[in-house]
């Protein structure tokens, strides 16, 4: 389990220390206004930036003490953008970071509806396609294409994975993430801008504002009209869906 104990950054971009953990089987949505520190938090969770205060542990061992290859089998990261210098074929790009077999790669590509693009060059992809390719790569790194799973307690971190996807792809991706969390006991943390996606698919939500976590809990607890209006400086109302009662965020006219 990935756990934070009063972990944070004192140097900019700062992050006020807090304690929390990513639970296996849960899809966590990290939301907040621009510049609130969502990506900063993700670079903390992935171990890219070592916490200046407190500690960050996976299974009780601080992340920086993990052997990089062993850690890579346990946690994977999908960054916000993909910038490539060279034209990698999608299939080879997806295999970077794992010794995946062709069958594994095919399985992961199928999960993200990418089979038709497998032999194409990555530089020719659209933004949404590139985004799904990078998610496929992370899943491959965690060995999710294999028929039998080996590593328990894996962590998947995603930075705005839906930002370039159309509404149908958004739905399919969020369903996939939720399914992976539940079926494979993955702990998934996902930065999201669309509050309704967070409300609909996440098990838990963290709300960040100006480098501190100001709320955490179930979507119904966190996505409260007054809190959101203040945090985002927006005029909005929060209703609830008729089918399952989850929050529904609407802009005021």
């Amino acid at each position, binding site marked *: 389990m990935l756990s934070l104990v009063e972990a944070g950054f004192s140097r900019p971009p700062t992050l006020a220390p807090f304690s929390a953990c990513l639970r296996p089987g849960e899809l966590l949505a990290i939301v907040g206004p621009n510049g609130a520190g969502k990506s900063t938090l993700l*670079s903390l969770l*992935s*171990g*890219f930036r070592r916490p200046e205060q407190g500690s960050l542990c996976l299974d009780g061992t601080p992340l920086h003490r993990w052997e*990089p*290859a062993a*850690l*890579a089998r346990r*946690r*994977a*990261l*999908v*960054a916000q*953008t*993909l*910038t*490539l*210098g*060279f*034209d*990698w*074929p999608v299939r*080879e790009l997806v295999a*970077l*970071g794992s010794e995946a077999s062709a069958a594994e790669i095919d399985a992961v590509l199928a999960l993200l*509806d990418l089979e*038709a693009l497998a*032999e*194409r*060059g990555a530089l020719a992809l659209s933004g949404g396609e590139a985004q799904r390719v*990078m998610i496929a*790569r*992370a899943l491959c*790194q965690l060995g999710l294409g294999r028929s039998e799973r080996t590593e328990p307690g894996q962590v998947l*971190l995603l930075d705005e994975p839906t930002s370039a996807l159309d509404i*149908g792809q958004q739905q*399919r991706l969020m369903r996939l993430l939720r399914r992976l969390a539940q079926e494979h006991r993955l702990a998934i943390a996902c930065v999201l801008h669309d509050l309704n996606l967070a409300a609909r698919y996440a098990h838990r939500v963290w709300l960040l504002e100006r480098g501190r976590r100001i709320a955490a809990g179930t979507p119904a607890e966190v996505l409260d009209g007054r809190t959101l209006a203040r945090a985002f400086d927006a005029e909005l109302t929060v209703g609830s869906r008729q089918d399952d009662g989850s929050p529904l965020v609407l802009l005021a006219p």
Partner: protein
Amino acid sequence: MSRTLPLAGPWRRQAQGRRKQPRSPRQVLALLALAVLVALLAAAMSGSVGLSPRVLLGEWPSPLAWQVWWQLRLPRLLLAALVGAMLAGSGAAMQGLFRNPLADPTLLGLASGAGLAVALWIVLLDGAAGSLGLYGQFLAGFLGALGVCVLVFALGQRQHGQEALFTLLLAGLAINTLAGAMGGVMAFIASDEQLRQLSLWGMGSLSHALWSATLGALVGIPPALWWLLRCARGLDLLQLGELTAHGAGLDAPRLKRHVVVATALGVGLCVALAGIIGFLGLLVPHCLRLWLGPGHRLLLPASMLGGALLLIVADTLARTLASPAEVPVGLLTSLLGGPYFLWLLLKRRARC
């Protein structure tokens, strides 16, 4: 959730057929190694002191001819192979490190930095005269290349993408200009003997390769090549960007240190031994990448073999084209590489 491609029929086949399934890595490397071997044999038999093909039939040359060949031709061939492999291999590694197909030891000023250090050594410290001569020259080349490498790297680190590329190329330009000017100053204050030494070395030529120089290359270059080969997987991961690569298990700072030191060591040695041989480090990896794809586990060893092949061929041409005079091989590679580079820039613009 099926999504069909907008391309259909023959168009789609063409789009897919564009990227031919490459041969297996082993086959590619075996093919290139064979080509290097053939080129070595051909080069060994060509020119004024070349062996006669009858050697293959077991007919040995006269002891004198053999002696001349052994003293003059063999070290030169080995040096060409090693320098070619090093320049092309370090070009491939630099391009991977900067994630940019235009990075190259000469363009980034590494070679001229090493060259300037060697010039300083020859002129100011009168290094060529001492007993440490050649080895001092190696060390000067290494330190010069390392200094430029660190400087260029510090500049490239602060920015990303397109902006970083401009900074790097401009820095390379500045370093090349500065080194050229200071080299001119050195030539101005040098004594006649030093000047002869400088100009002999500076044109990029393998013609004064003797065993003493080749031994230095044999000791220094293979470890640098091996070191670069070990970085191949890391360079692949780095293509994902530093954040993602870290998530995939890469220790990026360590990788950078290794590539920078191995490149500086190898390129410094090459420049100290053979002067500045341009464009090899740009040309070879680029052509091979078009053929083999960008994965470094194949690209790095293939570039090394390809570089060795190209420099052996170029040096043979340099020896024989204007025989009995010699064209400096550095001039030859620049004459070939310059137009190719321009064509490359034009083509890139068309695609973007």
